[in-house]
């Protein structure tokens, strides 16, 4: 049986359903992300697991124990908040030691465990500082250390990186993953940033309007998005009309008009070939330089298509240039149209 289990979990705020019949199983040591736009119920789900929000219906099981209605303190979970929620009147060491003091751990043990966890998050030199004297990334590490020191069965991260600037965010992603691996702790992270979810999770849970719409490993999620919403939310996608050919394989319809299928084609899967060859003809409308890549917007008879090509050092195509587009037909993904009403 899974280590952490949500069974038909629901949360209603008056007439509004914030979370609807959510089922999720998280294995021990797994890193799972809850991904979705704001208001999709991911934070509410996390808060129900942490015990800050009452559960309307359903059950939460931790290692076989029903914790649905347990007090936050008795769940013993480690929580890292979006705002970090550090105690501003305590030093880093006192912040980290707080949970151990509440557990009446002996002074010598507190000293030992706090030092070890500060080592783990690389904050030993800042132990006597106050939170306001630290940078955003350092505060984040304090919050992580404070949650980890009590050796919780599950670590809950609520948008842990959204208050950091872009460079630091990437660095902390890898840092969180390193620490999670080192400790081997079961982790559930809430995020609205798909890149964050894809890069460090074992599995990603996509939520939309209070429901889970897809649970998959990051690579599989990216390659096989189930719905139109997911294909646009996780990575970039060209949405095309299509139908089935004689053999039953999906194909793009080249004449404008209603196709019966909605297809998704990732921009980096499209090859640019000399004009007159390929499956589709077009003209470069705009190009953007992204450093390692070029992003082209290409006007075609079936609408504007985004193409991403690796920057291989050759001169890029100019705007107005006529090109042909080609792609392996097995990389077209058929999307389900039965979407959750937003």
């Amino acid at each position, binding site marked *: 049986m899974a280590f952490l289990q949500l069974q038909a979990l629901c949360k209603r705020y008056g007439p509004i359903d914030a979370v609807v019949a959510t089922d999720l199983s998280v294995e021990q040591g797994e890193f799972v992300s809850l991904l979705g736009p704001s208001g999709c119920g991911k934070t509410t789900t996390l808060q129900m697991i942490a015990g800050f929000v009452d559960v309307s219906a359903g059950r939460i099981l931790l290692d076989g124990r029903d914790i649905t209605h347990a007090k*936050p*303190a008795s769940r013993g979970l*480690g929580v890292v*908040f979006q705002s970090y*929620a550090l105690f501003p009147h305590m030093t880093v060491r006192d912040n980290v030691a707080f949970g151990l003091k*509440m557990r009446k751990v002996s002074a010598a043990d507190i000293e030992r465990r706090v030092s070890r966890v500060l080592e783990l998050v690389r904050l030993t030199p800042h132990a006597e500082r*106050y939170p306001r004297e630290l940078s955003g990334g350092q505060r984040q590490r304090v919050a992580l250390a*404070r949650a980890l020191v009590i050796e919780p069965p599950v670590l809950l991260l609520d948008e842990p990186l959204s208050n950091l600037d872009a460079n630091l965010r990437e660095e902390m992603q890898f840092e969180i993953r390193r620490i999670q691996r080192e400790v081997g702790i079961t982790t559930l992270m809430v995020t609205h940033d798909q890149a964050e979810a894809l890069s460090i999770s074992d599995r990603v849970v996509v939520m939309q309007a209070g429901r889970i719409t897809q649970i998959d490993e990051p690579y599989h999620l990216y390659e096989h998005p189930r719905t139109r919403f997911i294909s646009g939310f996780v990575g970039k996608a060209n949405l095309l009309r299509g139908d089935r050919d004689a053999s039953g394989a999906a194909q793009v319809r080249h004449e404008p008009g209603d196709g019966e299928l909605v297809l998704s084609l990732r921009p980096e899967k499209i090859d640019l070939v000399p004009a007159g060859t390929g499956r589709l003809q077009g003209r470069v409308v705009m190009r953007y330089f992204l450093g390692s890549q070029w992003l082209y917007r290409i006007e075609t008879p079936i609408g504007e298509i985004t193409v991403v090509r690796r920057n291989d050092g050759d001169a890029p195509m100019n705007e107005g240039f006529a090109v042909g587009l080609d792609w392996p037909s097995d990389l077209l993904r058929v999307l389900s149209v039965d979407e959750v009403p937003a």
Partner: protein
Amino acid sequence: MSVLRDTGRGYLLSAPALALFFGLLVLPLALTLVLSFNVFDYEIGVKGGEWTLAQYANLLTDSYFYEIFLRTFWISALVTLLCVVIGVPEAYILSRMGTPWRSIFLILILTPLLISVVVRAFGWSLLLGADGLINQAIQALGGRPIKMLYTPFAVILALVHVMLPFMIIPVWTSLQKLDASAEQAALSLGATQAQVMRMVVLPQVMPGVLSGTLIVFGLSASSFAIPGLLGGRRLKMVATVVYDQYLSELNWPMGAAIAVALLLINLLVMLSWNRLVEGRYKKSLGE
């Protein structure tokens, strides 16, 4: 800012406020200080050109004044303590209320400030008097009437009532700055609700409690209307004694000397309290 400073326009802009401050506060205080050193004669009155330390000598040697000052300060200290005990939890509950109720209760707390202290003091004397409402109720139930009016009890009760908003508002302001998730964090780390209050909330609202105590203590120690109306002729506090000296004894220099002494002692108490509390919390909470 530097433009204002360099051209002197800043001084010009603050001139009206400075003039008001100088004319209504500094000048009268200086005159009071001068008056306290003037010679007083019961036959003639104040002798403008002659100087003496007799008033201050009197103040230091007469045990009557010691008693008055001591009483004023213990009553003020007790009022301050009661305001902390009642006001801090009240402010906390207020900050946790939902949208319509919070503003309603905040206004309810502030409305007493809109009613004259004198009116409120009379209200209390109607309740607490020898045949006031409370004693009538006690007698109706077969008990013996209790003396409440003209006792420290009445003065303290009324002062707490008047001063409570001055404690609640600064504490409420510091509560606004609190990160609610810090309390959730403490709960998830195994703290009980009481521990969260004591170890997380209270230390963070100490600056508000400090300003509240300073305001309440200062206003209580120099309060006049409530001790005057509810303390009566027997239970004197410093401000009522100053009033007596000025208007009954007509000994203005003595009244001035007591007023100066009250100001100085008040200042001393408040400054040392401020240092004591701020010293403990400044390092951790910053400016």
